[in-house]
């Protein structure tokens, strides 16, 4: 492994240094400017050699806890997973392959959801499957109307 590595040194300081270099005052602001990018893509933009996607997520959770906007972050994370797993939007027919892609998006999303919000995320997933959105649905960010209905902000 190289001497530059995401898990070496003070990665939190490094993360914020990169965010500031790119003209943002918070990781959340940086991430929300790229609402459909995956965590890995965000990490790659911040430091292809020394930032990991999981660290970006850790940073986002910490900021959201402080600003009491965790639900918004959780919605934003679903947007990222949907774009990664369902690039053509919500499928018209849930055949076996599409069903896996939807399951993958939801499974990855709830896994990358803070414990306190997992249950609500699960229920939102149930609701999405019970009343599927229109084919091609691909939310553009945490302010998507349907997402706000499924996971309204509670903190504010």
């Amino acid at each position, binding site marked *: 492994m190289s001497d530059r590595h*995401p898990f070496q040194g003070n990665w939190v300081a490094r993360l914020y240094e990169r965010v500031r270099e790119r003209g943002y005052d918070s990781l959340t602001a940086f991430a929300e400017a790229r609402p459909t990018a995956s965590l890995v893509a965000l990490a790659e933009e911040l430091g*292809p050699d020394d930032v990991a996607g*999981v660290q970006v997520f850790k940073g986002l*959770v*910490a900021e959201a806890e402080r600003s009491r906007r965790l639900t918004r972050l959780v919605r934003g994370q679903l947007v990222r997973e949907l774009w990664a797993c369902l690039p053509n939007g919500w499928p018209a027919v849930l055949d076996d392959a599409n069903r896996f892609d939807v399951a*993958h998006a*939801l*499974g990855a999303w709830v896994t990358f959801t*803070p414990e*306190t919000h997992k249950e609500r995320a699960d229920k939102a997933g149930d609701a999405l499957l019970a009343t599927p959105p229109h084919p091609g649905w691909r939310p553009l960010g945490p302010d998507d109307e349907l997402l706000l209905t499924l996971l309204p902000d509670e903190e504010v």
Partner: protein
Amino acid sequence: MTAESPGRVEGNAWSIALSAHVAFLGAVNEVSASSRRVSSALSRLKAGDPGIPSVGNSIFVRYVDYGERQRQWIDAELAAATRMATAASKVEDPDMRLALLRLAGPRLEAAMMGSLLLAVWLDFLNLTDTALARHLQSVETLFMNMDRLQKMLEPTMTALSSLEPEQVEAAAQDVPALVGHLTSEFAALREAIRKGAEVLQKALALKEAMEALTLLSSLKFSLPRLLPRAGPATLGVGFMVGSNGVMLGTRMVVSAEWVEMMRQLVRAGILSVPAVSAAVRIQAGQVMMAEAHGELPRGVREALGDGPEVRGMHVTGKAGAGMAEPPRHHVMPKEFREWFEKRGFTGEMDIDQFCVRLEQAHHEAIHGGGDWKLGRIWPGEWNRMIMEVLGRTESRAGRMLTQNEILKIVAERMKAYYIPMNFIPWRGP
């Protein structure tokens, strides 16, 4: 992809994975063809009469059987390598596809080296068979000779069939020197037989038999003094890369197609430079000289795909003297072995094959220790996370995940955790 940036896919990752895949199948086919040739030659030896089957209560048959056993493990490795290539072809993620091919690499490498040695063993069997059939040497002398040769061959064959990447690679590097020794043995045996024939006044008849034999021999280029027609001694003649392939003087050692196939496999980290170089040197007959432990000229090595990044990629983790090797870590947690077995992770795709070596700091971070000062709410422990995402996806899918789907999810999580997609087998309990 380099070892330094595990999760970063180059724009042409797909085409790299594809050409590596094609080269892999080509190399498997080539070794399989050689194995089939050996197999039928061994059958002929066992059936031929007079000679090995009939002399001395069939005591020589065991040496044919020894060859047959080697052919069996070589074929088993080739079959496993083919199955892994098939599994790789179903994987969408190009990095994971390459990782699976790299995982199969030591099997292909072992089969390649093993089949080179097996061809040499077949040469000895043929020579012995001729000597036995024509009563040119005492049965006892020939028997003792084969016994000694088998002992010479065995450690390397055992290491090659061990499936430990480090052992396979070390053995592969020793193969040219071993072939060098065996070549001198072959020359000595041939000379002894020739002298025996002179005494018996059978020299003329033998000459033809010997020449026919040696022309087919895998050692023919190593035996210039014995076979004047093969050309002048190769000492002092340099290797060159030409448009037709690798040349030694005016003779083509390996074709340009072969070089290209090997280059793809070396660049993708599937075969090691030492193994491929060993194969070239054996083909060239450059095994008897002092350079038995030497390297091919740089131009040739580069044509075969060598380069600093490849060397970095292929360091199999041997730490320097006194340094502890970084711990190996199951990517698919061993506590859930059965769960993975039910979903197809058995045999060469056993979860023990999918380990990564992580530096201590990294390892602890993934397990929730180290620098994870933010990790109160979200326990980032790898095992728990990977089982959670697999379990959640499976229950949403409403059916068992396939091997390919599991690999897709694992690849994605590995990228998020910046874990290099370079698998090594588990070692330990």
